[in-house]
């Protein structure tokens, strides 16, 4: 059976991409036979990347890619190679920050997710002057990570949404005694991407979606059939101005 991929433009907002992903996810979850999705019709590679993650969940799903590197999907240990591909563009002066962002996302997955699968996506969109970064895992979710360590349980009153709130506020499950040395990855990058650079930052974990840009912020409790067992972080990073100094914010 073929699933008709929703038409999403290459320059669609992160919100529009996520909406199309959820519509597809909900539809696919209802199929009982094997499904094939053709990506040839889609202009939006971030959406294709997100849909490809469903292959982890549904063994019956096949995403036909138009070329091997169509989605810029990379193994976590190859992220620096992916970044090298955009090093000689207008982003050359911002590579220190892109490394900081991707390093922290990789470390979060390795330290906390307990996942079987994980991967990253880094793609430069020159028309929009942005770099889209996405990291995904099929692990225990942020909520599961706090529960496993039995930390901050009293603050988890709203399940996955509360867990995302804790993570974005820098509450780590692995602080050392008498030091708050962990939990900077999400909190500092969220601030830099949205408040400082005016981009979009989104965290999708379990049954909750957090999405923030410079103007608005939403924490959404999702329908049960689009629950994600794991965590997906998306950052749309606008080209930083020449005056940007990341050390002022970390």
């Amino acid at each position, binding site marked *: 059976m073929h699933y008709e991929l929703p038409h999403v433009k290459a320059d669609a*907002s992160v*919100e*529009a991409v*996520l*909406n199309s992903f*959820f*519509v597809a996810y*909900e539809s696919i979850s209802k199929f009982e036979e094997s499904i094939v999705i053709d990506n040839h019709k889609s202009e939006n590679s971030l959406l294709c990347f997100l849909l490809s993650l469903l292959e982890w969940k549904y063994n019956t799903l096949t995403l036909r890619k138009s070329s091997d590197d169509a989605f810029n999907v990379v193994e976590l240990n190859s992220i*620096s190679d992916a970044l090298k591909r955009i090093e000689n563009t207008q982003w050359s002066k911002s590579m*220190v920050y892109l*490394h*900081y962002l991707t*390093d*922290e996302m*990789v*470390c979060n997955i*390795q*330290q906390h997710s307990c996942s079987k699968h994980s991967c990253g996506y880094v793609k430069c969109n020159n028309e929009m002057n942005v770099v889209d970064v996405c990291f995904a895992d099929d692990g225990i979710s942020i909520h599961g990570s706090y529960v496993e360590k039995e930390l901050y349980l009293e603050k988890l009153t*709203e399940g996955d*949404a509360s867990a995302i*709130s804790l993570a974005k*506020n*820098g*509450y780590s499950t692995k602080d*050392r005694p008498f*030091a*708050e*040395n*962990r939990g*900077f*990855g999400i*909190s500092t990058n969220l601030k830099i991407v949205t408040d400082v650079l005016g981009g979009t930052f989104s965290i999708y974990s379990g049954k*909750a979606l*957090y*999405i923030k*840009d410079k103007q*608005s*912020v*939403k*924490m*959404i*409790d*999702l*329908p049960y059939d*689009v629950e994600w067992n794991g965590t997906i972080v998306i950052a749309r990073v606008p080209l930083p101005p020449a005056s940007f100094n990341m*050390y002022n914010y*970390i």
Partner: protein
Amino acid sequence: MKHIIKIAEIINAEVVTRNTVESIEKRLNHEDEYLFDMSGVKHISRSAADEFFNVAHCDYHVVLVNMEPFVKKMMDVVSIGRFKTRDRNEEHDEVIHCPDMESLSKCLLSL
């Protein structure tokens, strides 16, 4: 006994994960002294820098030397952070409940 450990030779010119630093820590003993020669390390993540800080400030005798400017800057960020109280933004995010796709689409596309 004094040892010099060339980090770039053992790990890489890029040190990203905490695990790689922990793997070096496993080679140390508490009696000897260690110089971690950081020459050749061009890039370090904040997490890896934090882990080096841990190794250099626990019961081992470890000193980091020959740090490249970027590495030194990240080590400074980490060590300053250790003595600063965290300034957390504790504002409560109101949760929007979307029981179905229609309400979810409406919520997402109204941003």
